């Protein structure tokens, strides 16, 4: 489970060759390190880090290797190891590792990939440790291993009833060669005692007491506090500032200009960019409040650069004009959509638009860094610390080997912390003042210097034949980029459904330049595209006078694997979740009051299959009251941690509803207007409906959950609004004024 991802092209299950190294831990006991070749870089040859450490007193310490951003991975990965190790969960201590991909591969919170990448490898790590302990016991008692069983951290000799704790066996086990991971025996899932059983988050007891777990809570002896004022227009540069005045303010230690550096690409072309150092003014003081107050007195002369006149309105106008023309390039073409549209009895034309949106993690971006004498120690809440290491090394001219990164719990990620801009800023400022520095962004910094979910415009035409089948689909997507290449996270995959199910289909695109940094936001692409596709499919269902849910099922067609993410889209699994949600929600079976309606939508997103139904009541004044959301989710045969899974699925749905109802980032004069939660808000408690989540178990490897449940809720809501009012929402966020009776 995890909340967000790099773009889809990076989601590929790597082929893995794994091996174990066993040894004696410093301080006694067994350590097992597990390496995945082909992913990790050997930065520190010979480094032996442990996933599992068993102390002579039988406490078991399991390493949590991935960044924890609220997705529960710090609990989930150790559950996998503990299960196969055959210990009781209450024996287990969990330690967060540092960032070091040469030892711990795949330290990324992104793409809902923690489960698919780790489900089996982590279990094998646990099983291998168990195997070694069994061998040690067999040697101790001089009995065959076949007479031994394990449980609750003990080995028992069945014929005699003798037992030894793992702790009593570690010294001997540590001297044994590690078994090959491929050869170890995994448990039959019906014997699971931990996997599949709700396990509360491991940090919970500390969180409810307010213990300092987050990046923003870090304190380093002798540290200063920093704020960093960047140009309100993202591509702009600081020319000069009243630094002498600022330096005289109470508690201020230093104030200076920071030059742009690193690999910051605003008008990105093609590939994902990992941000860099932006130009700005740093203020360093003996408290954050004093730094922040000094910033208020700051007068900066900016060179705002060429994008200073851009605006949301201007983008929309330009998009509307481009939408009237033919697309600049083709993403996909099947059959002859133009001809088929001419012949179709029902033709629908619709233009959809959605805005930029911010990530707005509850914990603003922050980082603490101590860069002195060519060495850096960094404390960061990052979803992808390794790219931060590279960025810091490059920008500051440090050897990556000399950078230590401690991964701190993050107060939300959603894709924002895949970028490491805060990390390079803190490192730069620390290096400049030759002291440890804690950089904390204000909420305004955070909201106005994001990598936004890109705005987008879709000009759609669809044709339905007499039998009610979609025979033509033409879609012109207007987005951002340059030279017919999409900017970061703006691209639309050519395989987007209903591709493969409409005989005459054309997806084309035109891109325009923008100075607004864009990036992945939870369920990237899908959080917008699924809304467009499933809304327009609903429009066509109504044009065909079909039941919208049945229309979606019919559109799936025969059972097969369509091109898509991973191994492709399995229409059977989509059918499964649609049928499930039909039953859960009583679709078509209940008589609804006036101006109340139900809508349905689905998504295949980050390897998960989800269908959702929303019931909504719209008052005559246009006010929206969501009655309930039902979600049917297929992420394979096993839900690792049911309590966390339900929480995560509900959270993703709440996130999607927030996007639909509340969220819009507005650009004026090249800069972001909204600067706090009054202008841009997540869903509130009052807006939150009951959400029922059910998992459909199918015989497929378990996959992640942070993202898949988000996309369908936006079109399901808008389709429900149409059912309730006859008004089609074609622009986000939903303008309730347009829904008045």
């Amino acid at each position, binding site marked *: 489970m995890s909340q967000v991802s790099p773009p889809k092209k990076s989601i590929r299950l790597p082929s893995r060759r794994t091996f174990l190294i066993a040894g004696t831990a410093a301080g006694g006991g067994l350590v097992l390190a597990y390496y995945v070749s082909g992913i990790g870089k050997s930065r520190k040859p010979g480094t032996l880090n442990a996933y599992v450490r068993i102390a002579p007193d039988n406490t078991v310490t399991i390493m949590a290797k991935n960044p924890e*951003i*609220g*997705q529960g991975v710090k609990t989930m990965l150790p559950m996998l190891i503990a299960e196969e190790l055959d210990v009781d969960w209450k024996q287990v201590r969990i330690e967060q590792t540092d960032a070091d991909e040469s030892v711990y591969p795949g330290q990324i919170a992104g793409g809902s990939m923690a489960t698919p990448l780790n489900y089996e490898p982590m279990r094998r790590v646990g099983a291998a440790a168990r195997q070694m302990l069994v061998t040690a016991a067999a040697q101790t008692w001089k009995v065959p291993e076949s007479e031994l069983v394990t449980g609750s951290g003990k080995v028992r000799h069945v014929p005699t009833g003798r037992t030894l704790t793992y702790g009593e066996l570690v010294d001997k086990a540590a001297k044994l060669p590690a078994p090959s991971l491929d050869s170890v025996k995994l448990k039959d899932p019906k014997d699971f005692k931990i996997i599949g059983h*709700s396990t*509360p*988050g491991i*940090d*919970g*007891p500390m*969180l*409810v*007491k*307010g*213990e*300092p*777990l*987050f990046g923003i*809570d870090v*304190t380093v002896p002798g540290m200063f*506090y920093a704020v960093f004022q960047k140009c309100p227009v993202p591509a702009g540069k600081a020319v000069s500032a009243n630094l002498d005045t600022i330096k005289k303010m109470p*508690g201020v230690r230093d104030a200076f200009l920071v030059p742009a550096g690193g690999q910051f690409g605003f008008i990105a072309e093609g590939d994902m960019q990992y941000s860099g150092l932006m130009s700005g003014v740093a203020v360093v003081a003996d*408290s*954050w*409040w*004093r730094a922040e*107050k000094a910033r208020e007195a700051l007068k900066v002369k900016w060179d705002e650069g060429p994008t200073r006149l851009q605006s949301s309105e201007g983008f929309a106008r330009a998009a509307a004009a481009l939408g009237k023309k033919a697309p600049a390039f083709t993403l996909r073409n099947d059959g002859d959509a133009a001809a088929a549209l001419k012949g179709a009895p029902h033709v629908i034309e619709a233009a959809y638009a959605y805005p930029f949106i911010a990530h*707005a*993690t*509850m*914990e*603003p971006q922050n980082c603490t860094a101590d860069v002195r004498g060519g060495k850096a120690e960094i404390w960061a809440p990052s979803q992808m610390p390794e790219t931060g290491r590279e960025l810091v090394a490059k920008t500051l001219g440090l050897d990556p080997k000399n950078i230590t990164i401690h991964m701190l*719990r*993050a*107060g*939300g*990620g*959603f894709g924002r912390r895949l970028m490491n801009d805060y990390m390079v800023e803190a490192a730069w400022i620390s290096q400049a003042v030759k002291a440890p520095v804690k950089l*904390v962004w*204000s*909420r305004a910094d955070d909201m106005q210097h994001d990598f936004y979910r890109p705005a987008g415009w879709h000009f759609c035409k669809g044709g339905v034949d007499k039998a009610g089948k979609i025979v033509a689909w033409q879609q012109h997507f207007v987005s951002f980029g340059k030279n017919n290449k999409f900017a970061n996270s703006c691209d639309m995959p050519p395989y987007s459904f209903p591709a493969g199910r409409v005989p005459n289909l054309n997806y084309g695109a035109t891109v325009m330049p923008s100075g607004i940094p864009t990036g992945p936001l939870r369920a990237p692409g899908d959080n917008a595209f699924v809304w467009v596709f499933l809304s327009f499919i609903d429009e066509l269902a109504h044009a065909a006078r079909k039941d919208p849910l049945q229309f979606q099922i019919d559109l799936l067609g025969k059972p097969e694997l369509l091109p898509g993410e991973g191994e492709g889209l399995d229409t059977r699994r989509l059918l499964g979740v649609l049928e499930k949600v039909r039953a859960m929600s009583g679709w078509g079976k209940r008589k609804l009051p006036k101006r109340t309606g139900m809508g349905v939508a689905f998504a295949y997103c980050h390897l998960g299959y989800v269908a959702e139904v929303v019931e909504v009541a719209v008052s005559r004044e246009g006010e929206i009251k969501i009655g309930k959301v039902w979600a049917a989710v297929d992420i394979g045969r096993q839900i690792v941690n049911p*309590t*966390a899974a339900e*929480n995560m699925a*509900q*959270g993703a*749905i*709440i996130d999607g509803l*927030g996007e639909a109802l509340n969220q819009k980032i507005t650009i004026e004069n090249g800069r972001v207007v909204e600067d*706090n*939660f*009054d202008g841009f*808000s*997540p*869903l*509130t*408690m*009052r807006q*939150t409906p*009951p*959400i029922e989540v059910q998992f459909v178990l199918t015989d497929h490897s378990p996959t992640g959950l942070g993202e898949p449940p988000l996309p369908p809720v936006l079109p399901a809501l808008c389709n429900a609004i149409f059912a309730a009012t006859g008004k089609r929402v074609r622009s986000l966020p939903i303008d309730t004024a347009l829904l008045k009776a």
Partner: protein
Amino acid sequence: MRYSLHVNGHIHTVDVDDDTPLLWVLRDAMNLKGTKYGCGVGLCGSCTVHIDGEPVHACRRPVSSIGISKVLTIEAIGSTPIGARLQEAWLKVDVMQCGYCQPGQIMTAAALLARNAAPSEEDIVEALDGNLCRCGTYLRIIEAVKLAAAGRKGA
């Protein structure tokens, strides 16, 4: 300026500017990091503490306005019966995702239960609607507050 503040049952003396918000005094001068910064202007509830039993946004209270009032933060809420019940309920319901907003949620809920021992769902929503949770744990927060309120009889 030197201030002697009554926080969590102890007197803490700090030397800070008059206009420093209580939030930053707690976090940076007293090293009580449980009270969280989310917005700085009273829009998110992450910084909620109790001042003489009332829930307030610590980001909006300059230290000079605190005087001899008694400040209670998440670090000490567990020493009150209501706070302890809430923490227990929070763990039982497994409310947390990232957990960042939760100190503020718990402090707001504690103030609610102190004045209304058996709140309806509407009372809970009314009291907690100003506390944002970006991860969307609202349904579990409501469940946990109800559980803590119900636990009162047994306690």
